[in-house]
């Protein structure tokens, strides 16, 4: 068959330039907020295999993950300046297009027989690719295989990028999602764990950049106008026209990036709206994937496991409340004074002490991987009671749709990094009733939860990124709408920054 350059292939090629360039820039924005790569899921300070920051953290003072943001330039990252939420929005908007494009392309390759351009149909391709490599090294141009549009080395390298690297980057990207990673926890561990997956995702980026650099050099060596014309017109009969159109396309791409960056920095809420239209229709499907992580090498059955896999020093990602009230609670060991309030749209409003929570929990625990939105992970064994059991005791009234959690923490008061008021979060009832949504009162069998990790009582939402697992929990309120609370976006970071309430990715 004549492989040529069909129109859909040329369209896909140009769309991929747009998508991948946006993914790279927004991915760098995400990286910038925790610019360290690890092999171990415990993310122990000093053990990273790579760092992409010039910041040295305080050596003799407690620092939180929130202070690890690195300020990347908007010329490099999208949008730059440590705006993680907006970087995530762009990454997910673009990934929607990228994956759709790749799946469509894959199907078209199969049904049209064009898969032959990437998949060798003879073992002869491999020795021929070696000969082609030698030809390039010898500063001579290898010839295309008979009946093919490019040489054997190009066939193998393009095949690798499209059929190996792209599925790998999609897979490792998908497993950044706490909902996916904690639902398919066996696969998470099979892939080496969250930090290995994160590192592999980064190395895929390096792979794309390396391919891009070599690809561009070879396009110039083979003849810029000749090669780009094939990707525009499908032939090289009129290289000047094709090359000109391609160059104009590249210039428009640069303009698109500049406009997107400036627009994002000027009006983040507009980008949020775009994200909600494009991403939420599929990200909401992840509510169907309840977490079922019990961190043990041989067990995902739901049985409690020991402390072998837990993180010795669970990372702190916020500053404890600095109020007389909280200090008094802490000084008295919480047990006598702390009371968790459960109220709102329920039949039986109630208050529970830690001792009562402990009694209700009857020894229940879960050992899970914490997915920080920035990127750090720690593994903790949380002892607590399932929220669904507490809700059953309280009895939500008909029409109750969401659960709101309020913390003792006041961000503007307690943490110099932030402004604003009380920390709160909310979940839809489906997330509140998930089997691993927990009201926890003990970490790693230490008798309590340390103050830096949210003691005396905190929420664990294993399907969401870490900041939604509210710490220093004061009150739980069942409501019939959350959009009338404060800014109406469902949580502190949702209100004051650019984070979606759906944090399942």
């Amino acid at each position, binding site marked *: 068959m004549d492989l040529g350059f069909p129109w859909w292939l040329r369209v896909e090629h140009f769309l991929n330039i747009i998508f991948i360039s946006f993914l790279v820039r927004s991915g760098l924005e995400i990286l910038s907020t925790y610019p360290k790569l690890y092999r171990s899921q415990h993310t122990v300070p000093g053990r990273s295999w790579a760092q992409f920051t010039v910041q040295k953290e305080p050596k*003799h003072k407690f620092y939180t993950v929130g202070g690890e943001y690195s300020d990347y330039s908007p010329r490099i990252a999208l949008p730059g300046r440590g705006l993680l939420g907006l970087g995530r929005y762009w990454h997910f908007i673009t990934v929607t297009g990228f994956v759709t494009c790749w799946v469509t392309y894959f199907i078209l390759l199969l049904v049209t027989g064009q898969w032959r351009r990437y998949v060798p149909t003879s073992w002869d391709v491999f020795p021929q690719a070696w000969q082609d490599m030698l030809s390039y090294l010898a500063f001579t141009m290898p010839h295309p295989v008979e009946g093919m549009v490019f040489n054997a080395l190009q066939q193998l390298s393009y095949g690798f990028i499209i059929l190996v690297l792209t599925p790998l980057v999609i897979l490792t990207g998908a497993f950044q999602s706490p909902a996916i990673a904690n639902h398919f926890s066996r696969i998470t561990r099979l892939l080496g764990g969250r930090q290995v997956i994160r590192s592999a995702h980064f190395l895929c980026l390096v792979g794309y950049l390396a391919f891009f650099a070599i690809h561009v050099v070879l396009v110039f060596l083979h003849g810029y106008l000749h090669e780009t014309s094939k990707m525009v017109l499908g032939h090289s009969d009129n290289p000047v026209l094709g090359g000109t159109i391609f160059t104009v396309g590249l210039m428009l791409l640069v303009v698109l990036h500049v406009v997107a960056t400036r627009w994002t920095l000027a009006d983040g809420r507009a980008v949020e709206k775009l994200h909600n239209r494009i991403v939420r229709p599929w990200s909401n499907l992840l509510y169907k994937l309840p977490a079922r992580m019990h961190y043990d090498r041989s067990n995902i059955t739901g049985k409690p496991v020991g402390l072998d896999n837990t993180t010795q020093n669970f990372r702190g990602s916020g500053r404890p409340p600095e109020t007389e009230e909280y200090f008094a609670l802490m000084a008295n060991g919480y047990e006598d004074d702390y009371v968790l309030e459960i109220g709102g749209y329920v039949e039986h409003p109630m208050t529970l002490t830690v001792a009562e929570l402990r009694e209700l929990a009857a020894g229940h625990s879960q050992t899970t991987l914490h997915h920080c939105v920035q990127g750090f992970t720690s593994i903790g064994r949380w002892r607590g009671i399932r929220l669904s059991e507490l809700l059953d005791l309280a009895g939500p009234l008909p029409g109750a749709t969401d659960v709101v959690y309020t913390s003792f923490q006041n961000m503007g008061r307690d943490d110099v990094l932030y402004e604003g008021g009380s920390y709160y979060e909310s979940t839809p009832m489906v997330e509140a009733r998930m089997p691993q949504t927990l009201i926890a009162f003990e970490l790693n069998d230490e008798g309590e939860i340390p103050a830096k990790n949210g003691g005396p009582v905190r929420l664990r939402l294993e399907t969401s990124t870490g900041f939604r697992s509210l710490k220093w929990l004061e009150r739980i309120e069942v409501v019939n709408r959350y959009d009338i609370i404060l800014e109406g976006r469902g949580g502190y970071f949702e209100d004051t920054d650019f984070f979606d309430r759906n944090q399942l990715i």
Partner: protein
Amino acid sequence: MEDENSPALRVGVDFRGTPNATEPVLEHIKPGGKRAPLLRYIRINLPRATRWLLVALIALVGVASAAVALSQRDIFPLAITALWSLVGLTVVFVIIGLTTHARIWTWGLLITLFSLLIYLGGLLGNAPYVWNGASVAEAAIWNLTLFASVVYSLLYWALRYGMIVASPDQQNFTD
């Protein structure tokens, strides 16, 4: 040690009296600037892999140079002698690199500069290029000495710049 409760001091990290003791500090940023040069943001801490890579590149230079020397092509006067001398140096380098923890990277740079000098001599002489009558394989091996030397030189620069480290050194990340 004055404070046994300090985890930092317990592991020998002592920044007392510096701003970094209690505050984050940003390095490599010029006064008045907001950000450091781009490449300062990259720090890879894979010392053993880097050591292997550097040694492998010099080995590649040596093997390729030996192959060129064995072809007995008259590239320029005394080229064969120069190539075999280069091979000898690479052998010594590889042995030291694999059997000791010595920091030999500057010696490696000198070897690659020697190799590049021979390549330059080939450009002025009768180098084994296809257009000089050599086979594709001969030309590829000849150019391999160029590419391996250039890559080693770039890695050497990255090493000195602090982007990468080679065993026995490491980045000494503490955070």
